[in-house]
């Protein structure tokens, strides 16, 4: 049988039936425990579902876009939104730079023990987030923490990392940087390996130095991979939850309150499920918008 003959919808009824049997468990689970809840969330966000409705759903009333307009007037929401944007705005470029820098080092032909370094840099990625947050809370201790000891050795003043609203967000960004740069690094190393050597040879013959090779060959050739890593990093950062939950509970003064943590608090601490569902959809919209920007950039570049 020729491969071309295998067009869609062309299977025997028997083959199609077998396909649906194989698909059924996965599709049913996704429909029941993912698609239905997402649609339910949309409906929920248009009601005033609260603790009383949790007890008896008939207490919930349709409020239209009320939850969304109320968010616009809630200073805590704006604080959470600002924090999350700052978190992404600081974290994404830092993580990307660290991933790229690390990848260039690991990929360098001068590097020894490449396999070991790749593993070392990836270890934080598989580290349980909560455990990492617990460890970092002590690394950030104003008196005994390793970080301030380091600052002290350099003759710099101690910082109250998690207690000072000006530093707490940065502290969480640094921790997330530590935990996630290895992921991008591994993907970028693979991207670097895919660039043909002949390009570099030609460039060297033309007398191009290290920097010129980086900007004229490596970065342009790597840009699809970079784009992918950017989107991945950004989407992950937008959902930041466990770090502030464990390390600061969103404090001090809501300085590390993220949108996901705000949603959790509204939903599962105060049982304002309608309001929380609206927050979830705002988060969704933000993530969609944020991943559309690099995608559009990529389309423009590839002409």
């Amino acid at each position: 049988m020729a491969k071309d003959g295998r067009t869609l919808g062309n299977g025997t009824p028997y083959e199609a039936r077998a396909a649906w049997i194989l698909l059924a468990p996965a599709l049913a689970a996704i429909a029941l425990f993912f698609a239905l809840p997402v649609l339910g969330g949309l409906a929920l966000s248009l009601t005033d579902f609260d603790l009383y409705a949790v007890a008896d759903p008939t207490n919930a009333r349709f409020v239209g876009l009320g939850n969304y307009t109320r968010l616009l007037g809630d200073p805590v929401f704006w604080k959470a939104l600002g924090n999350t944007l700052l978190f992404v705005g600081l974290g994404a470029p830092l993580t990307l730079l660290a991933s790229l820098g690390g990848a260039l080092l690991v990929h360098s032909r001068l590097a020894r023990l490449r396999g070991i370094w790749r593993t070392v840099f990836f270890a934080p990625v598989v580290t349980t987030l909560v455990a990492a947050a617990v460890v970092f809370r002590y690394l950030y201790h104003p008196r005994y923490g390793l970080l301030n000891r380091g600052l002290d050795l350099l003759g710099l003043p101690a910082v109250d990392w998690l207690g000072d609203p000006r530093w707490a967000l940065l502290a969480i960004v640094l921790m997330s940087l530590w935990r996630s740069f290895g992921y991008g690094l591994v993907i970028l190393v693979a991207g670097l390996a895919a660039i043909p050597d002949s390009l570099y040879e030609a460039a060297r013959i033309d007398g191009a130095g290290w920097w010129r090779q980086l900007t004229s060959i490596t970065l342009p050739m790597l840009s699809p991979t970079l784009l992918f890593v950017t989107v991945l990093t950004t989407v992950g950062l937008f959902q930041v939850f466990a770090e502030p939950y464990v390390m600061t509970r969103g404090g001090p003064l809501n300085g590390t309150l993220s949108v996901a943590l705000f949603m959790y608090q509204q939903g599962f601490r105060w049982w304002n499920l309608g309001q929380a569902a609206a927050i979830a959809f705002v988060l969704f919209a933000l993530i969609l918008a944020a991943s559309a920007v690099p995608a559009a950039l990529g389309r423009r570049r590839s002409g």
Partner: protein
Amino acid sequence: MRRPLATLAVNGALLVLGLVTLAPLLWMVSASLMPTGEAASLPPRLLPSTATLEHYRDLFGRLALGRSFRNSLILASAITAVSLICNSMAGYAFAKLRFRGRGRLFAILLATLVVPPQVGMLPLFLELRLLGLVNSMGGVLVAGIASVFGIFLVRQFALGIPDELLDAARVDGASELRIFWTIVLPALRPILVTLAVFTFLSAWNDFMWPLVVLTEESRQTLPVALANLSGEHVQDTELMMAGAVITVAPVILLFLAVQRQYLEGILMGSVKE
């Protein structure tokens, strides 16, 4: 003369970056072995004066963390087993079986990847309450039965299974389900190992969903128990580090054991359609 200098710079930078990366983990292990109070002493100590396992004994004895450890193990294993079966069946069907609407259905599934998990979390909680699954392992499990990413990964791999192999079996009169069991599953083995590790790690590390679903202390998973513990025992640095070690060690060891397949899986997953 420039070359040795560049070599030194590259490897020196790698060494520094590597040490910075490992420092938190090394300190975690070291502090977990220190006698109580030693991690918060001045001048600072990097290594324990005498190594002690008392905090580990405390965690498994007095604080009953062994229970959470077992919960995490059971839950992560169950999610891995169930999702592996569902995802491999669906992935194979999308790759190799012809049926009406295949392309469109697969496209719809891929599109759901952009929806962050938080969006369905609240209604799913209400749904589970209706089904009586709140505060049960089953409640955590249902969200992990199938994953679009897993289906995608299996499909990509299954596309490489030669059609001739399947057709030959059909000519021999084997049923489709028999073909799946005796030919397809063995052929999928490399990707299933990768996917299993992937799933186990993320199920073990998951925090938000078990935190929401499992309200009773005796049913909590290890990360949730650790987060609670760290709220109550903020001052007890060494104890908390031992708790962090217990939580992290299984996944790091698993990763080290199968890192090759794991990293390849990441790269396969990151290849765009």
